[in-house]
């Protein structure tokens, strides 16, 4: 085992349940695992097994009942809302199933959005946005509105938005779930490239076995428990 690098994500005894009326529905039960830096992890499992919940927890947009989430040395479960928002803006790139671009903003403006929270100047922001859009192969579509782009192109803009701040981890919830085979392939190749060439740690929830194949590690979530099913 290679012990030189500490894991970038360290999850200990994580539990989360939802309350529906008087009923308590446990979703995650005592989950413990590590994700090494530079990992490309696929999270699979049946619908309703809690994949999105787990992803949201480690992206800092939902809060756990108990347990610890240490990301790059920061214990995010104890951060106050304000600190958490700031932490997210610096360390997490989020890719959604439905792209979630702002329809009234151009591709350029959508990618620029997270940079508005930084101290970068206009020119610096422009340079970052252009680089990100070039990486996803859409440098020529900067002024297009989401409605003028295909689903695959929109998801690539969303990826540019996720990476433009150079975050510590990239989380993706079924990023190819709404795409045809071909576009899905393009998105997966892009994520693979980001992982290999830029060393980005990626955690991806997916139902698609072909998507999972791109990952180094596949983990299954079932009945609140995580099983290791890596190659």
């Amino acid at each position, binding site marked *: 085992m290679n012990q030189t690098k500490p894991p970038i994500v360290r999850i200990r005894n994580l539990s989360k349940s939802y309350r529906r009326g008087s009923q308590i529905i446990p979703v995650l039960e005592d989950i413990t695992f590590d994700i090494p830096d530079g990992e490309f992890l696929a999270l699979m499992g049946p619908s309703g097994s809690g994949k999105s919940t787990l992803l949201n927890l480690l992206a800092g947009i939902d809060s756990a009942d108990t347990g610890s989430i240490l990301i790059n040395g920061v214990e995010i479960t104890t951060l106050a809302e304000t600190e958490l928002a700031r932490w997210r803006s*610096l360390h997490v790139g989020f890719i*959604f199933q*439905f792209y*979630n671009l702002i329809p009234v903003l151009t591709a350029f403006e959508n990618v620029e959005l997270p940079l508005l929270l930084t101290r970068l100047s206009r020119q610096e922001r422009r340079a970052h946005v252009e680089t990100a859009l070039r990486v996803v192969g859409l440098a020529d579509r900067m002024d297009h509105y989401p409605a003028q782009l295909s689903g695959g192109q929109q998801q690539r803009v969303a990826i540019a938005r996720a990476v433009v701040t150079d975050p510590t981890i990239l989380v993706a919830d079924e990023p190819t779930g709404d795409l045809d085979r071909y576009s899905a392939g393009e998105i997966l190749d892009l994520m693979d490239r980001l992982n290999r060439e830029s060393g980005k740690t990626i955690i991806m929830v997916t139902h698609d076995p072909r998507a999972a194949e791109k990952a180094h590690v596949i983990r299954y979530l079932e009945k609140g428990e995580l099983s290791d099913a890596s190659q």
Partner: protein
Amino acid sequence: MHLSKLLWKNAFRHRLRTSLTILGITIAILSFGMLRTVISAWYAGVDASSASRLVTRNAISLIFSLPISYKDRFRQIDGVQAISSGNWFGGIYIDEKNFFPNFAVEMENYLKLYPEFVLSPEQVAAASRDRKGCVVGRKLAERFGWKIGDSIILKGTIFPGDWEFVLRGIYRGRDKTVDETQMFFNWEYLNETMLKTVPRRANQVGFYMVGVTNPNRAAEVALAIDRTFKNSLAETLTETEKAFQLGFISMTEAIVIAIQLVSFVVIIIIMAVVANTMAMTARERIGEYAVFKTLGFRGYHIAGLIFGESLVITMTGCVLGIVLTYPAAKAFGSTLSNYFPIFNVATSTIYLDVAAALLVGIVAAVFPTWRAVTIRIADGLRRIG
């Protein structure tokens, strides 16, 4: 890009819905402005009245008169600078619908008390020299196309008979608050006729108009006047011109209050309309706001977006409403100039318009903002797809 760019883009995402909402606000602000203008037109006489003028009338009631012989005693009262007298004549020009105020006054002294009526000394002299001479306001002259030298015949109501006058002077208002629809003629003309026809009604005036040397002492002088005539045949009641005018309005106060209420109801209705628009909008965007929060934007960013959008919509409507208020008031004022000689949009009305629109914009945004800010991100994201 700056986040504020999103306010405009968001506001006009649903063109039709936003346009209709703006139209509603425009109409609401227009109605609000017009109603407020009607109210201030109502009080125009009060606002135009001078603090240095007192009105003395019969203590029993306005319909009882005072003897003209009181005049000399006024002059002896400390603080009285000038004195004139007059009668409400109530004459009708051809038809009752042509109503305008007309008074029999002691011309030269009366006009001296009203520096806000601007006309040449020659015209004043000509009007008082001619027994049948009269002076009218510019608007009144324009309304009936009267020129200097024209003969005007009024049908008397309080003083029966047909009365002929000759137009000798036309006054202009010193500013927009001055009523230019009144007519003044020589009291002597009325009195001579009374002496001949109904002697017991002669040598009587309806009111005395008193100019005081120092407006700050007006109350004191008023008391002194009433004390002078205490235990006389006709006791007097003296008040400032403002109080005198207010006395007329208090009779119609209920109407003014009703109009005031309606003007606020209009604002409350439009508030509900805009709040509904904003609630609909924010519900549709709950997922988008969750995305913003995911990216690290904070509650105040979201609040800024929603409040900003709401204010963009309301202030656009407000500006349009204000712009339309001026021509509307002009049209309204010229149609109803008989009833509202002064019909100007006051600056304070514009401030009220803006305040009302701001209030509407802010109130409408409160609930959607609260929802968008407090909803958990994960729940917000779930609304997409």
